[in-house]
């Protein structure tokens, strides 16, 4: 009984995070493509928010995302700005795709093909 209660509680506590993730994914699928890449940062603000909420949970994630939105102003030169590392550990091969996409492995320069 208590086991069921705990898992139900965990689910309810995790709901805001899931809702936020759902909202962000929908935004990135529907709204973002409308005006193309316009962010002065990498990852873009919505990708940042999605990763933050995925990795840090709802409260901290939303906090990080709002701080990023404030940083995204005309007086900021932009650049690469990653989500701070979180404590959440994902099982091998189950890393959420947004985390993978936001941290691409940069190939070394000597891998580049000779100029054609």
């Amino acid at each position, binding site marked *: 009984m208590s086991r069921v209660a705990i898992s139900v509680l965990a689910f309810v506590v995790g709901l805001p995070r899931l809702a936020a993730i759902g909202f962000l994914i929908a935004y990135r699928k529907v709204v973002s493509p409308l005006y193309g890449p316009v962010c002065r940062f990498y*990852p873009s603000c919505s990708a940042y928010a999605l990763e933050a909420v995925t990795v840090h949970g709802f409260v901290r994630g939303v906090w990080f995302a709002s701080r990023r939105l404030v940083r995204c102003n*005309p007086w900021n030169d*932009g650049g690469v700005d990653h989500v701070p590392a979180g404590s959440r550990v994902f099982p091998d091969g189950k890393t959420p795709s947004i*985390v*993978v996409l936001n941290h691409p492995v940069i190939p070394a*320069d000597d891998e580049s*093909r000779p100029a054609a």
Partner: protein
Amino acid sequence: MDFFETILAPFRWLVSWIMFMFHEGFTFLGMDPASGWTWVLSIVGLVVVIRAALIPVFVKQIKAQRGMQALQPDLRKLQQKYKGKTDQLSRQAMTQEQMALYKKHGTNPFAACLPILIQMPFFFALFTVLNGISRASEEGTEIGALSPESVRQFDDATIFGAPLSSTFLGSFGANWNASVVILSVIMIIAMTASQFITQKQIMAKNMSEEAMQSPFMRQQKIMLYILPLVFGIGGINFPIGVLVYWTTTNIWTMAQQFYVIRRMPTPGSPAAKAFAERRAKKGLPTVQLLGERKTEPAIEAVPEPRGQRVQPRKKRKKR
């Protein structure tokens, strides 16, 4: 429309207030408040204030442009590196490296358009003030900080017998006014000429060889011939007051460009060569130009994800 008006209102107030202050100042100096020349000078004063206030914006814009030019070689290298890699992860990696590159050069294509956007409301407000004088005078209303009396005075003011609020097209037929037509034509020519000279100067003297060969150049050439057309069409429709503003601001742009070409030319352009020669003749040391690539050996700056654990690559699913 209402929403638009609400945004524009404070700008319009500011613009008309500056003009009003200049008018008061010139009147105080002993000029006739009802004279067209006092109002023309007020418009000129307004242009000077606005353009002077926009100088920092202009400098920022130049910096952004120079930065974009300076990073072109690096950008091409990057495109070469990711050539043919079209999977999502590679695209992401390329975007990240590109952003790091922009940051390194202190520029960003998404930041470069801001200076242009900032100017828009001012110019639009100014235009609506000058263009709306006639109607406001008829209706006896105020415009921004201009009282109904000032508006009427402005509307009645003339230079060389041409009312400031009359247009080229409105001066034919029954209310034929030769001086409006002649003045409009002169100002359209002045406007076009200053614009043309500015563009020609930039293209002939202040572009690096690299930029000369870019597709951007073709666009510039088209602009060179389209803008006079725009001035021509706009010029016959707009009142003399707007034309005064437009001509003055174009002449300001020309002077500003002359200064830039002489004192801070684009690296790698003929103007930069002339600048270096002038300095050498005077025995002055060479200086680093704005947006010039530093000659020190470039350190390979592969952006390391700072303080971030390396994410494992997504494994291919077995089919």
